[in-house]
């Protein structure tokens, strides 16, 4: 066991998977000599060589499009988008091809590949460096979207993503990259994609979040439990698509109340889908409207104003209180 932050944990998974399977290759901008702008790919070049760790030209569609070809030909490419804000440039290849080769060829050609990308705000970055657009990827049939929240699940889910037979968008909360450490096993670990995790059990209200928002959610849950002794259930969604509707519904059927914390813009984000799922599967158990705390329908403001855009523990706490008191 060692205590790792998320950057180290992801780096560990990459090392482990590249050592385990020689078909795993990494490609992206500055991932080699530089070790990635966040140092996530540090050491891979030295260990596995320039043929398997490719510093590519500056072209996002080129990166994903060529990764698709590699995957078709039997490799297991792990492509990096330097920031998720630039991932729109490869969406044509993702939606048009990675997501479709299996359907198009009835399973003869498949795209087992991973697109890693740091996402989200809170690090005082330039424009296009702070978005949370998981819903865009998650609305593409044939693509899985995974968002870890902590070093341990990041490592285990990345391993699962690399082994998965289909394209996985793996969104790393850059704000949590070095925010905290966790004990991580010395043995390779793999978690199941498509399953949410109940982090704390409770009976009065369900809080659902994912990625970087798990931290303010956790903080608010802690404060409320302490202040009012309420029993809160906390769910880490982990996979945005395909979504684990059963875990969500089972919890809300039990608690009757729910608050969702999402960094993405308000409209058409995963929170909307969660609410729709609750409507489908647990409406009659609801004792209050589900409350969603989200970003606004704004371009993420420059960093001088981003704190007021991002859901804060205070906003989450007030939402929980209002929903408990409803």
């Amino acid at each position: 066991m060692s205590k790792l932050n998320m950057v180290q944990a992801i780096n560990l998974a990459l090392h482990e998977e590249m050592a385990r399977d020689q078909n795993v290759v990494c490609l992206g901008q500055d991932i080699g000599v530089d070790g990635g702008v966040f140092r996530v790919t540090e050491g891979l070049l030295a260990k596995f060589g320039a043929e398997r760790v490719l510093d590519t030209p500056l072209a996002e569609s080129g990166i994903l499009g060529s990764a698709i070809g590699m995957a078709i030909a039997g490799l297991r490419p792990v492509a990096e988008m330097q920031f998720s804000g630039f991932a729109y440039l490869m969406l044509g290849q993702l939606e048009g091809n990675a997501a479709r080769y299996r359907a198009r060829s009835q399973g003869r050609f498949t795209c087992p590949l991973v697109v890693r990308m740091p996402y989200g705000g809170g690090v005082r970055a330039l424009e296009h460096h702070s978005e949370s657009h998981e819903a865009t990827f998650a609305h593409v049939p044939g693509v899985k979207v995974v968002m870890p929240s902590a070093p341990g699940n990041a490592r285990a889910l990345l391993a699962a993503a690399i082994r998965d037979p289909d394209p996985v968008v793996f969104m790393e909360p850059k704000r949590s990259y070095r925010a905290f450490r966790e004990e991580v096993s010395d043995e390779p670990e793999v978690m199941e994609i498509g399953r949410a995790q109940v982090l704390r059990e409770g009976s009065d209200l369900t809080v659902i979040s994912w990625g970087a928002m798990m931290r303010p959610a956790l903080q608010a849950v802690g404060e409320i439990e302490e202040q009012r002794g309420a029993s809160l259930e906390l769910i880490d969604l982990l996979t945005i698509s395909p979504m684990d509707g059963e875990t969500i519904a089972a919890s809300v059927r039990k608690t009757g109340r729910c608050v969702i914390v999402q960094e993405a813009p308000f409209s058409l984000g995963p929170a909307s889908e969660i609410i729709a799922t609750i409507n489908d599967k647990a409406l009659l158990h609801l004792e209050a409207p589900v409350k969603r705390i989200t970003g606004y329908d704004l371009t993420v403001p420059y960093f001088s104003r981003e704190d007021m855009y991002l859901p804060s523990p205070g906003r989450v706490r007030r939402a929980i209180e209002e929903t408990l008191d409803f």
Partner: protein
Amino acid sequence: MSVDSACPAAGGPIPPGRLELADHTFHIGHLQVLDENGALIAKDAGGAPDLNPDQLIRLYRGMVLARAVDDRLLKLQRQGRIGTFAPATGQEAVSCAPVVAMRPEDWFVGSFRELGGRLLRGEPIDRSFLYYNGHEEGNTFDGGERTLPVAVIIACQMLHAVGIAYAMKLKGEDAAVVCFFGDGATSEGDFHEAMNFAAVWQAPVVFVCANNHWAISLPREKQTRSRTLAQKAIAYEMPGLQVDGNDALAVYQAVHEALARARAGGGPTFIEAVTYRLRMHTTADDPKRYRTEEEVKAWERRDPIPRLRKYLAARGVWNDEMQVNLDEEIRKEIEEAVKKFEEAEDFKPDAPFDHVFGIPHPRLEEQRADFLANLSREQGHE
């Protein structure tokens, strides 16, 4: 074989000053083996490719079959028995000759106007009918493990070709990739990114650009200002040349040599095959809206099929009787394919649910159940 003279300077009017420096010059080669009557030209410059009669006949047969299937598909479409389809009449040399130059272990990465090449790679005719009738089932075939399905998004497949080529290189396989696309594709960002990646990686890929002079209604001259498409290779320090795309032997020779170079570690090559689409863009298109009958007529005279036939006849490996037999053989083959296509078994209605992910997930299975429930209700209704 003929060579273009070096192109003169480019650009608009230049004011006096030092900007004449911007006025680069360059030179692009052009390969032609047969003249428009099928006679070998410039024998001194290399003569005919090193193809034996069997190979020549395989190539010729492939082109004749492609044309006949095109005819038949057009009829089927007009009868409402298949959906939209993109005829390739006139372009048979571009799609078939490369396949004769390829080995089975090479990858065929096509766009949507290379049915001839696909058939020559072994795709059964009836499966191509299935494809044009809206069935994913028509998109692959046994033996087609290295023939990618039709790619509709213009230029997207070029990047897949590069990735596959890189994988071949990494795995040390003695295999290369041939990638097809049109003149219109050269305008897309993916064209550029693929060309650049291929050159940087020295990937074993041969790019075959079928410049058929039109991208739907946009003529080649409005697609890009460059006088040749081949010169675009200069941007990537990639070898590039023009070939007469209605000269099957020229196409063969260029692809053959480019494949040899690719397999030898020499990297990619860009081949602009100058040809012409004699029919509509797709069955939904009316070319009379944008081009003249005369233009089409002029290109009909350069038809690649009679041209190759004349060469074969002159070489003594083809005669009229063989042609009669071939036509009959192909007629039968196509009739059988139509029959097979029309008698095709019932297709699994929920197959799409089988091919979203390799690992089942409850969310999709719930939807499949809903779909099947609806299906049985609607079928009960009728």
